[in-house]
């Protein structure tokens, strides 16, 4: 299972790098989403996998059973998802705002725009 997930993580990384390197800003955002998912999955895999054993202590017991899913990596991922979600929402608004009063969606034009801002006025 770890091997399979390792390949999935690798595939996600590759796809996200491809998308981030594209010139369209919308693709850039999707690439960042994929990258964040890849990293979350990486943490999940690094936390060791178990099957059918939720990370809970049964009612009425003090100690967890012998085999238990790693709750820490799940907590880390949850935190990372929450943070990633907030950042993504901000990025989305940012690109939308930029697009609203200029015609920019091409990351190459961001560079030209820096040199001469008048080119891309709507």
């Amino acid at each position, binding site marked *: 299972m770890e091997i399979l997930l390792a390949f999935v993580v690798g595939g996600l990384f590759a796809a996200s790098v491809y998308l981030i390197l594209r*010139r*369209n800003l*919308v693709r850039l955002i999707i690439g960042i989403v994929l990258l964040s998912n890849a990293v979350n999955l990486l943490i999940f895999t690094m936390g060791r996998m178990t099957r059918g054993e939720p990370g809970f202590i049964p009612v009425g017991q003090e100690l967890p059973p012998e085999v238990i899913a790693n709750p820490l990596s799940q907590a880390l991922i949850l935190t990372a998802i*929450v943070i990633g979600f*907030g950042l993504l*929402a*901000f990025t*989305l*608004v940012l690109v*939308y705002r930029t*697009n*609203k009063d200029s*015609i*920019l*969606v*091409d990351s190459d*034009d961001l560079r030209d725009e820096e040199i*001469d801002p*008048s*080119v*891309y*006025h709507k």
Partner: protein
Amino acid sequence: MYTLILRTAAKLIVPLLLLFSIFILLRGHDEPGGGFIGGLIAASAFALLAAAFGTQPARRALIANPLELMSVGLAIAFVTGLFPLLLGQPLFSGLWVEFTLLGTAIKLGSPIIFDVGIFLLVVGTVLTVVFELDTDGISFFPSEATVDARGPTRTQP
């Protein structure tokens, strides 16, 4: 964009979603659930309203300004975390009170108040973004794409 189906469905679904979000929030006290997920559900209820009826009705339904919800939520969560300091305990320690009400033992802790703060914070943040994405007040999902996938056409300076 006017669709009768979405509007009729939204009228039914939105109250249910809001009720469900509060259930999830309170359930988070002892079981899976909590402020974040509850907040997301509540926010999606208002996002649905915005999609069906437009942003302005959704804003009116929310009553409070999402930015204010955000700041109040953050303040509640932060003060709850800070409170143990006054009692000489480390930051963000859980404080618990137990009492019996009408014969049932009730255990209340500061985490639930923290969760309420998070709930408001999440609702505020998500709706700030949702409303922000539609400041034009025309439609939630613009019918003609404002983002031209082929990239910009240069205007000569």
